[in-house]
């Protein structure tokens, strides 16, 4: 029995007409393959599985707690009296450094995800009339975080440092977008992004899946 909503004439017409919907271009096979190879060569990274992210979050909280405790103890007590105490202090300091480093990595992941979304949208909107002032403002915000990241322990990783350098350049160009020559400037920025493969590198640096730990403002 025919459903009350079914209308074979409409459905046939719709299928025929809908073929023009977002009609694809010929597949740029070689171009995409080159990008895949490049991204896999630069594959890096902070591989955090979902359960690990919670561990990392707990570790970050613990690191802050230990840090506060250690600072309070130093404030209240005299210098350590024994070698054993000094050894324990060194171990705790090392653990704090290690946990802080992981916390920085989580913050880096959060920042990289935001930057990826922004640059993906910027490139997709390159030929549209998105608000230049707003784009520049968003780029400035991300640029500030990029520069803080470059000065943080997260940038001890040479690959991440190189990526941050590329991102700093792109974000600086967007933050200086000139509304008068907007279209030409955007084309140049997009070309530069394509040539340096900054988006594939950025995506390779971001672990798969959502990043549940909110660390905005941590850096």
């Amino acid at each position: 029995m025919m459903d009350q909503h079914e209308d074979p004439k409409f459905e046939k017409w719709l299928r025929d007409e809908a073929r023009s919907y977002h009609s694809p271009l010929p597949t740029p096979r070689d171009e995409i393959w080159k990008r895949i190879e490049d991204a896999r060569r630069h594959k890096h990274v902070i591989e955090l599985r979902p359960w690990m992210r919670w561990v990392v979050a707990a570790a970050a909280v613990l690191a802050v707690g230990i840090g506060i405790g250690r600072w309070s103890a130093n404030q209240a007590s005299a210098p350590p009296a024994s070698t054993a105490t000094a050894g324990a202090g060194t171990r705790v300091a090392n653990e704090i450094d290690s946990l802080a480093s992981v916390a920085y990595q989580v913050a880096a992941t959060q920042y990289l995800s935001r930057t990826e979304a922004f640059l993906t949208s910027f490139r997709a909107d390159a030929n549209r009339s998105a608000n230049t002032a707003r784009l520049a403002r968003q780029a400035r915000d991300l640029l500030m975080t990029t520069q803080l990241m470059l000065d943080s322990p997260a940038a001890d990783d040479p690959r991440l440092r190189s990526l941050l350098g590329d991102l700093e350049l792109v974000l600086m160009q967007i933050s200086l977008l000139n509304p008068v020559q907007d279209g030409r400037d955007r084309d140049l920025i997009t070309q530069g992004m394509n040539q340096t493969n900054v988006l594939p590198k950025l995506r390779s640096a971001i672990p798969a899946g959502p990043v549940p730990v909110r660390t905005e403002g941590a850096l």
Partner: protein
Amino acid sequence: MDESQLLARVRAGDSAAERTLYDAHVDRVYRLAFRLAGDDALAQDFTQETFIRAFDRLGSFRGDAAFSTWLHTITTTVVLNGLRKVKRLRQRETDIDDAHEIGTTQRHAEPDLKVRLRQAIDALPEGYRTVFVMHDVEGYTHEEIGAALGVETGTSKAQLSRARAKLRVALSDFAGEWVR
């Protein structure tokens, strides 16, 4: 060489086999990404990400289903997650722009059929649009769609039916086109 042999070579790290596997499937992946994204740069990004994930995770592909089915599951996940990110960002931008443009909006001229159809499909809820594009535009079966989206075949059919019903209402001005 059949596909299981090809996959075994890819697992063994044969880069020529990777390229062969890529060539065999890239058109369908890119077409679906383009149809859903409506943008070449995004479609390329999503295609790239799909294959990177597929190669990385090939070890977890047990061969219970066809490789193409598994690959399209990754494709739809990558595309839909990517589009959600872009949409969230654009929504924030639109909200800000709208706040500056209150009272300055103008009524646009009535668009033609193709534009109206595109707008109507774009306006479908994500699930309906995905099923509609995969089935009516790209020719996937309900079984393939169900497997790719992780839903029952009946759910896919129901979403397609609702998508068509919504489109019929949205395009009612053009009813003369299909009753001829």
